[in-house]
């Protein structure tokens, strides 16, 4: 039987506000446990929440970026459940009147198509703390540094039909929130976490199947694996004539296994009700316009501009516009380097490979866009060969020297592009290799002739001490040897 896969996502996005959503504690990651939790975060008796205006500004910016209606009157509810890392015994969240209403995001797929994924809503809420189950001799530790960190929970419509689409959407959302500067996007620190709702239905059916929710996926790779795993699990059950149980599942990425966390029957009754400690928040036109004025150029607009302004193809423009820092790096390199296409190739090639190899982000790159641009200038004007350019890149990266021209000089990487000098070298080398010249000239097959040309390059590079422009050597050779 053929199946349609139906996927909806819930994404928790940690907002990059300096302080928490309802208290003045810092939200910085990585501090000693419980050093960033004040009386409010610890839910000490009598303490009260005070909303952080910046969290609202960021949420509104997000809403504008996903073409959504902004909730003009935003309410908070209490979601009641007991857990040791939930200090108040309830999470302050939004249910009836979220700050961001229906919107959408357009996602580019690998097949070149664009798919619109609808956003159901996005709401503001507070994060919980962390329970630490190791190293406490059978007990659990509680770290409340994260408790009260502002989140927006983005809820999509079930508009995705494959793991690929879901991941493409997730990446697009990541690109959006990091471009907006409202989230640091660091998935390894839990800055974005995904819950995936999956159901299967017979191909073409308009009746949705029973769904499961796989919670707390914190990388695109795990998300893709978890979807594949869950689709397969459901398919096996359905094809054996079984029924899917509506439940929440946990996926273990290291083992590619999942297990049931709780079924619908076991689900908590959260007893939501409006939080009496917080008044409804009214978002007026001025606030929205102010947020709008803080919006940077968003990935879609950036991509269009990169194609228009720098003549990049769709793929390159899409890739370079997807990450705000990478886009800024590219623009700096393109401006200094004049040749945008060559700058784009170097960023996607040598630069990206090096970042990946050293597990660095663009922000952590030891070289600047301007430096890469300077190098691109020297490649474009034939001052260095591409092999030489790699040596220059290496020297920039390791910090050996920060000036491109100084490195070229110091390492003697400057190419000889004086045609007269090069011609003289070619004449000398050819004179010393009569047999090969004859062989070449007797060969009919152009492919083989082209290959034989390479045999002259080695001696030529040697004769020029590695500084001859290979492209010019090639042209001169062809001319001298005839056809």
């Amino acid at each position, binding site marked *: 039987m053929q199946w349609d896969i139906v996927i909806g996502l819930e994404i928790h996005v940690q907002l990059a506000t300096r302080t928490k959503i309802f208290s003045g504690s810092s939200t910085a990651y990585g501090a000693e446990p419980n050093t960033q939790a004040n*009386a409010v975060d*610890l*839910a*000490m*008796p*009598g*303490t*009260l*929440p*005070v*909303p952080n205006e910046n969290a609202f500004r960021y949420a509104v910016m997000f809403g504008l970026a996903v073409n959504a209606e902004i909730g003009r009157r935003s309410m908070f509810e*209490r979601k*009641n459940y*007991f857990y*040791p890392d939930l*200090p*108040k*015994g*309830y999470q302050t969240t939004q249910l009836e009147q979220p700050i961001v209403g229906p919107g959408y995001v357009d996602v580019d797929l690998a097949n070149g198509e664009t798919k619109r994924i609808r956003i159901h809503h996005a709401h503001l809420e507070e994060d919980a703390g962390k329970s630490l189950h190791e190293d406490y001799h059978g007990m*659990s530790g*509680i770290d409340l540094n994260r408790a009260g960190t502002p989140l927006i929970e983005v809820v999509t419509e079930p508009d995705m039909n494959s793991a690929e689409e879901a991941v493409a959407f997730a990446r697009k959302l990541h690109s959006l929130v990091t471009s907006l500067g409202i989230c640091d996007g660091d998935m390894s620190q839990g800055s974005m976490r995904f819950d995936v709702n999956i159901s299967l239905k017979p191909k073409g059916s308009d009746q949705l199947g029973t769904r499961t929710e796989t919670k707390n996926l914190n990388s695109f790779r795990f998300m893709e694996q978890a979807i594949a795993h869950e689709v397969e699990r459901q398919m096996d059950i359905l094809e054996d004539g079984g029924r899917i149980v509506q439940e929440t599942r946990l996926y273990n990425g290291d083992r590619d296994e999942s297990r049931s966390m709780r079924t619908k029957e076991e689900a908590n*009754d959260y*007893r*939501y*009700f409006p939080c*009496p*400690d*917080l*008044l409804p928040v009214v978002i007026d036109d001025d606030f929205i316009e102010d947020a709008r004025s803080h919006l940077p150029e968003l990935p879609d607009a950036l991509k269009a501009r990169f194609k228009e302004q720098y003549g990049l193809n769709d793929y390159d423009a899409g890739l370079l516009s997807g990450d705000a820092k990478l886009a800024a790096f590219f623009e700096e390199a393109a401006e200094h380097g004049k040749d945008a296409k060559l700058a784009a190739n170097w960023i996607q090639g040598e630069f990206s490979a090096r970042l990946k190899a050293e597990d660095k982000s663009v922000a952590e790159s030891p070289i600047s866009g301007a430096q890469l641009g300077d190098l691109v200038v020297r490649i474009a004007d034939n001052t260095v060969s591409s092999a030489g350019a790699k040596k220059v890149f290496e020297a920039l990266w390791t910090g050996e020297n920060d000036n491109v021209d100084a490195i070229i000089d110091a390492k003697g990487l400057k190419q000889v592009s004086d045609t007269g000098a090069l011609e003289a070298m070619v004449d000398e080398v050819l004179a010393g290799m009569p047999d090969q010249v004859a062989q070449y000239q007797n060969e009919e097959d152009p492919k083989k002739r082209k290959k034989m040309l390479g045999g002259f390059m080695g001696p030529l590079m040697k004769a020029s001490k590695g500084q001859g422009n290979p492209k010019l050597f090639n042209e001169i050779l062809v001319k001298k040897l005839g056809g």
Partner: protein
Amino acid sequence: MHNKSVAELSRELESGKISSVELTHQFLDRLKQEDGKYNSFITITEEQALAEAKAADEMRAAGKATAWTGVPFAHKDIFCTNGVRTTCGSKMLENFVPPYDATVTGKFRQAGAVCLGKTNMDEFAMGSSNESSYFGAVTNPWGLASGQKRVPGGSSGGSAAAVAARLVPAATATDTGGSIRQPAALCGVTGLKPTYGRVSRYGMIAFASSLDQGGTMARTAEDNALMLNVMAGFDPKDSTSIDREVPDYTATLNEPLKGLRIGLPKEYFSDQLSPAMEEQVRNAVKEYEKLGATVKEVSLPNAKLAIAAYYVIAPAEASANLSRFDGVRYGYRCEDPKDLMDMYTRTRAEGFGAEVKRRILVGTYALSHGYYDAYYLKAQKVRRLIQQDFAKAFQDVDVLMSPTSPSPAFIQGEKTNDPVTMYLEDIFTIAINLAGLPAMSVPAGFVDGLPVGLQIIGNHFAEARLLNAAHQFQQVTDWHQREPQ
């Protein structure tokens, strides 16, 4: 000295006839000697009080004294006090020492007042008789001569009894459904519950957040005004506090009452009220007519729904507010929990008393899936109707007057096994909390030797007018000066 008001003590200190340290010693001695009879204090902070008194004398010497500098008083044990245990009348917080001040306690500290300790209260402010306190019932100073121990009312019963017994001239209190006014009435003292949002709730341990309001208790209206001068005001730490100018509440105490329009809600003079009580209240209203006020009957048609709505909304909010008492971070934790669920269930079963558990259960039920619309939402609709009733009444009158409680102080144990009868103690006070209005209880006579309270209700932010009306009444009556024997 113990019979003097805050205003009088302030003048004594100002004149230099007595120092705050001397005054504090006198009050502490009397407190330690007398409170065995009443159990009105949970904690006496002798050491801190003497230190504060010394600091107050220095403050005065430096020319920085306020009306409160050096004056002894007490806090209801619901207000967090930095470094002094704050129990909220519960075993759950028996050893809880907050590392912060409530905004209210901070303000009194700043004014240089001397806190003698923390007064007894119903556990988590849930009760109308002060019998639900983990630290024992409080005894009303009135009616002891008959050989029977009577309740002081609740939940601020400790504050009311302490003021009535002249252990302190004034004490802070809180009111969620009548918890200032009803004990003030039963103990023959003057109490004010301000408009919701007038006094910061930060550091005041929450019972029902949309109804809780800190307020004042003293023997005279003037002292209530002096207290409110310290307590009122916007607090950036409380999102529900209101940013509105605070007048000097003592400045308008002597305004004449000529032309004051008084409304008597007919629903508050029903058969719930004994003829003897009604007579006292009507006599008080007659005093106001003599002072130039006019009186008319008004109607609050939805008043009868107030108790039902309140006992959905207040427990619902309480059920969430009290979830934080889970044994994880502070407060009581059961011995040797075998797992997390065992820790939760035993901590809460052992740490909370019966009335608190009853309200958590009721509130949890009212918010449960499938019941929310029928209970919580319906109660919120009733709340709006009640608010509209008051808004309509205040189109024609300046203040409303009624009895504060349906009967005078009852004997301890009389109503403990019948929660619904106990809840009816607040039948005349609860609607005011639902509407967020300010109201006072003023001593207005006696029935069988027990004090009767007159409730004066004002429109939002009409505290100055209420205090003015109460003060003028106290210029022509002496009910508030009577001392229990």
